[in-house]
């Protein structure tokens, strides 16, 4: 039944420090063309003598080290990566190519504006495209990631209310929200009002109506919600807030369900962030870098972080720093420029028709999975899905198999797991977001695997709860890792210095 994977040589590899020995080198500097100096004389007591355990290693060893490590990772390039909320879509290689062009990749952030017009033109065009896609009127590209965008957006809302004389005290957040939302509201100095979802997993409008008053600065809403459903009452939600002078913030994590089909600015959102590393295909890179532009309505323009892009009277582009009402900077320089280049290249590759088709395919894929897996897995909310579908492990827990176990077993079938145990409103959630990047063939393989695991959970639950069985390492002891944290290497931890035993290859554990 396991159609996607087979055994594959997976080489053992120690830590880089365990390969180090004095005198090995992977570099050579050009000869010094200025007089030599004595660091001890120039720096005095501040001069450093030794760099401790930093490795000494050759170039081929570095190449092999990281190449071997790379083979221990799963990646979009290897197959479907259906992590809900993370939008693991194809990362086009042309994006990497253009981001590394000499004049862009090597541009110093403080080089004079007259020799930065190319970079500034990219900022301008991307800003215009993102405003058009979101239906917003102004934007800052400065935030470095989604959570950083949330921080910026909530500060904008705070600054707006302050300009009216009162920053207000509370932010309303649905219980289905990402953890970054309450964490953000807290670091912006707001009290969090937790909004319980209704029986359909959506915003309970009547409950919201009771909570909104003039102490509420705004609401942070993810739309489509984290169960992948469009808030059909979005109009009423926006009106309820606006009637009391509160603002609607949208977490743009799920924008991949909307691009080209509807625009948050049109349906009442005041401020939102985008995750360029989700919707606009900049690579996740093992956890970052991201980029979290914040798009908003015109009333927030004067509060945007400094500097803002401006067109000078002579038509040249430049940065404007004198912005007395600004919330201030949220990052040094102008943001993750390299991600802007990639995101714009993605927009070019798609065009308006491709962006719309992308959204449609993402939604089609999620609904295809939903249709094929409903019954094998419990669907806690029956409302129509958009780009992701959330099942629960209720049917499997009867045999002691939980969402985390199913996820680990999925690894054996050659897939990255879906998002487990989120959103919190679905006990034992399986949150599946296929994205548009999956062919029907790959989806069918995934569906086969999930159905097969559902059968295993009935017939041989032990097989599932002890998974994964085919990985290089088995389930790791996270308890000891947290009780007695070892967060760095020291020579006494070394494994590699043991004398090597000669073992025939067929006896070596290869996975």
């Amino acid at each position, binding site marked *: 039944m396991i159609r996607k994977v087979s055994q594959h040589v997976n080489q053992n590899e120690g830590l880089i420090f365990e390969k180090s020995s004095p005198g090995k080198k992977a570099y050579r500097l050009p000869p010094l*063309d200025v007089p*030599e100096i004595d660091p001890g004389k120039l720096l005095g007591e501040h001069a*450093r003598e030794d760099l401790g*355990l930093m490795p000494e290693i050759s170039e081929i060893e570095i190449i092999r080290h990281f190449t071997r490590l790379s083979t221990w990772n799963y990646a979009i390039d290897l197959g479907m990566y259906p992590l809900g909320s993370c939008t693991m879509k194809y990362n086009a290689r042309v994006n*990497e190519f253009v981001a590394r062009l000499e004049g862009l990749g090597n541009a110093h952030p403080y080089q004079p504006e007259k020799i930065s017009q190319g970079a500034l033109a*990219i900022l301008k065009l991307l800003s215009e495209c993102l405003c058009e896609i979101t239906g917003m009127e102004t934007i800052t590209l400065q935030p470095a990631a989604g959570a950083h965008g949330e921080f910026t957006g909530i500060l904008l809302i705070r600054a707006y209310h302050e300009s009216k004389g009162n920053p207000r005290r509370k932010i309303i957040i649905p219980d289905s929200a990402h953890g970054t939302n309450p964490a953000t509201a807290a670091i912006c100095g707001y009290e969090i009002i937790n909004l319980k979802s209704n029986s359909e997993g959506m915003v309970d409008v009547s409950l919201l109506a009771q909570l909104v008053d003039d102490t509420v600065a705004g609401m942070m809403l993810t739309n489509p919600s984290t169960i992948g459903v469009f808030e059909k009452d979005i109009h009423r939600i926006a009106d309820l807030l606006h009637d009391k002078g509160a603002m609607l913030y949208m977490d743009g994590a799920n924008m991949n369900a909307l691009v080209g089909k509807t625009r948050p600015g049109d349906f009442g959102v005041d401020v939102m962030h985008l995750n360029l590393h989700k919707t606009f295909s900049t690579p996740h890179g093992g956890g970052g870098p991201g980029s979290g532009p914040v798009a908003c309505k015109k009333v927030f323009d004067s509060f945007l972080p400094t500097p803002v892009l401006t067109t000078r009277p002579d038509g040249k582009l430049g940065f404007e720093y004198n912005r007395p009402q600004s919330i201030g900077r949220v990052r040094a320089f102008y943001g993750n420029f390299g991600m802007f280049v990639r995101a714009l290249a993605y927009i070019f590759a798609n065009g308006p028709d491709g962006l719309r088709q992308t959204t449609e395919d993402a939604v089609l894929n999620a*609904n295809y999975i939903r249709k094929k897996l409903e019954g094998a897995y419990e669907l806690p909310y029956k409302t129509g899905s958009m780009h992701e579908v959330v099942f629960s492990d209720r049917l499997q827990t009867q045999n002691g198999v939980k969402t985390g176990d199913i996820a680990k077993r999925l690894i054996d079938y050659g897939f990255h797991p879906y998002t487990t145990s989120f959103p919190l409103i679905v006990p034992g959630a399986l949150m599946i977001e296929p994205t548009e990047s999956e062919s029907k063939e790959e989806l069918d393989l995934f569906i086969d695997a999930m159905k097969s695991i559902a059968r295993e959970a009935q017939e041989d639950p032990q097989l599932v709860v002890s998974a994964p069985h085919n990985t290089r390492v088995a389930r790791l002891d996270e308890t000891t890792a947290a009780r007695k944290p*070892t967060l760095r290497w020291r020579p006494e931890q070394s494994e590699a210095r043991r004398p090597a035993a000669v073992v025939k290859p067929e006896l070596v554990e290869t996975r």
Partner: protein
Amino acid sequence: MRYLPKSPTDREQMLREIGVSSIDEFFAAIPAEYRLKRDLKVPRQMSESEIIDYFRQRSQENAAGYAVFLGAGAYHHYRPVIIDALVQRGEFLTSYTPYQAEITQGTLQAIFEFQTMICELTGMDIANASMYDGSTGAAEAILMAMRVTGREHSVIAKTVHPEYREVIHTYLHHRGLPMVTVGYAEESGAINLDELDRAITSDAACVLIQSPNFLGSVEDVAAIAEIAHNKGALLVVSIAEALSLGIVKPPAEADIVSLEAQSFGVPLGFGGPYDGVLAAKEKYVRQMPGRLVGETKDKNGKRGYVLTLSTREQHIRREKATSNICTNQALVALMSTIYMDVYGREGLKELATQNLAKAHYAANQFGKKATILFPKAKRFNEFVVQTKQDPHGANDRLLEKKIIGGLPLKRFYPELGNAALWCCTEMNTREQIDAALEAVQA
């Protein structure tokens, strides 16, 4: 559309199997008045060659092939070719945060190696898996110091990167957390120790300094630590030029170090993405923001790595988390990891020494024609040049020779008059330095 792996027949078949007649049925929940009934006004779909042409043209409108004497938080160092060869492997590039440890050991082990090397270089016990950049890292370090001490004031050197200070101000002032700024000594450009001592009250959570500081001066970390610790405040040291650690003593007396590791193999890239990282004393680990990778074993006793102490983070602790950070700079941290491996124990020192020599030569030469401020400063690769005329004029002349001169400081430090901050790295040849000098004196 070339990124979409479906034929029209596939789509039709899938719709049929789902049992709907048209894709629009899935979008029915969107109220009709909000459905977009037109094309987005974005550029039309382009071929790959057109995309490359567009960015080539933009690249050519930007400076390319110039000699760069700018530093100020973004440093022009050589990037070994193997960095991009390795980080563009799809297994690193297109992988997510390593929550599923069994199939992300590559990323996890690389981060563990990164954490170890950052500890070695900074003299700290623990380091996290990265922060957005040096500016937000410094702000997070201050918030961390507040959690550790239970105090709410911070004391910040005026010689911390001005844009870092702006970011810190944004993080603090909306919550009513006070910060005071301490000036620098005229002779050395280093923090004014007497003023510092007076500025630290019993409410001070921490002192934040940068070393080498924005004006290029290496700070006396041990002396500053003593002053801070005497008043119960922590010392946070921000390092914007990571390569300085190859030849400058690590700030081992600090409690928290906020490092911008861009110098380690990260392209200048018009300001980002860069590579912030926090390192600290072990006892503060539970107040550390960001991800941490720890070593452990699997059930068969095999060594492996996991994300650990996650209860500090937003996805578990929500509004009570140490920070709202989620996405970090993992791939950029991988660039730095490879860079540190390439140069290693000897190379970082040799490279740092070359930087020191180039900057020393340049400062000496410039000193013959202009004033080098802060004569008593111990410096790494940056120095401040004061001229009779506004440095913008000289910089304009330099641009004609394809040289980007030092950063005029009037915007940040008006009291320094016609001053500019120059940086020399291993990338600046003697020829370039001599050519720059000619324009400055012209």
